[in-house]
C-alpha cells in the first residue's frame, strides 16, 4: 500500500482519500486504525453539546463518577466511563495512569521520577499528571506496543 502526501495551499481542513480496487487485510488494518484516530469525543462544555477529535484530548479523568476530557481549550463532560473511553478509543494512544485518569501518549512531553517513585507526566501544554506506581508496568507495555505499531 502506498502513501502519497500532497501539499495543497489554502485547504480549510486536511483530508485523506483512499483509492482501492479491493480492500485487503493491510487496508482494513489502516482503516480500522484511522477510524479510532479520527473519531470524536462527545460531551458537554459550557452547557453546549461539543464534539472534539480524540487526538486533541490531552487526558481524561473521573471526578465524582463523572468523566471529563481535557483539551488545550476546554474541559468536556462526557457521559461514558473511563473504561468505555479506553475501549472506544483503544488505538488512539490512550494509556491508563491511575484509577481515575487516562493520558493521550501523543500529548506527553516527558516523564520524571521522584524519590518516592511516583512518576510525574509533563504534558506538551505544561500541565502535570501523576502516574500511580501500580500502573507503571501497564504504561510501559502499552508504550512499547504504540512504538512497535508506529514503526510498522
Amino acid at each position: 500500500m502506498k502513501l502519497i502526501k500532497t501539499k495543497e495551499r489554502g485547504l480549510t481542513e486536511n483530508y485523506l482519500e483512499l483509492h482501492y480496487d479491493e480492500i485487503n487485510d493491510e487496508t482494513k488494518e489502516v482503516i480500522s486504525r484511522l477510524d479510532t484516530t479520527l473519531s470524536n469525543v462527545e460531551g458537554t462544555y459550557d452547557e453546549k453539546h461539543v464534539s472534539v477529535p480524540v487526538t486533541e484530548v490531552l487526558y481524561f479523568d473521573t471526578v465524582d463518577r463523572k468523566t471529563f476530557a481535557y483539551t488545550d481549550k476546554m474541559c468536556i463532560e462526557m457521559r461514558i466511563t473511563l473504561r468505555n473511553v479506553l475501549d472506544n478509543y483503544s488505538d488512539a494512544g490512550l494509556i491508563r495512569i491511575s484509577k481515575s485518569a487516562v493520558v493521550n501518549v501523543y500529548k506527553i512531553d516527558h516523564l520524571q521520577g521522584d524519590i518516592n517513585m511516583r512518576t510525574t507526566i509533563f504534558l506538551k501544554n505544561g500541565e502535570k499528571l501523576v502516574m500511580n506506581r501500580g500502573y507503571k508496568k501497564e504504561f510501559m507495555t502499552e508504550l512499547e506496543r504504540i512504538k512497535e505499531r508506529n514503526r510498522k
Partner: protein
Amino acid sequence: MKLINKKNFISIVCISFTLVVCGKLLLEKVIGFTDRHYTENIFTCLGFSIIITAVLALHFYLQRFPLIPVLIAQYAIVICTTVGFVKLADIIADTDTNAMWQMILSVTIPFIISAAVYYITFFRQIKKANDIIAEINHVSINQ
C-alpha cells in the same frame, strides 16, 4: 497490578524458601561450617520467607502512599518481627550472643539491596519511557 496475590502467595514463599536454603547450604559448604541447629534454622528460614512475602504483598495496598514511608514502615514491621522472634527463641533455646545483631543484619542487607535494585530499575524505566516518547513524538511530527 497485584504482584503477590492469594493464588501465587504459596509458590512465592516456596521459591524464596528454596533459594534461601540453597544459599545457606552452599555458604556452609564453602566455609566448612556445620550447623548444630539445622532443624530450627530451616524452620526459621521458612518463617521468615512467609513473613517477608506477606509484608511485600502489602505493597500493592500501599501504592497511594509515598514510597519512602512505605519502605520504612515495611522495614520496621520486619525488624520488629525479627526482634520478637529472637527474643522468643532466646527463651525456648540457647542462641548465640550475637544472634540479635546477626538476624538484624540478615534482614537489613537484603532489604537495602532490594530497595537499591528497585530504585535503579525504576529510573532506568523512566529513561526508557522518555526515549520511546521522544521517538513517538519524532514520528508523529514527521508524518
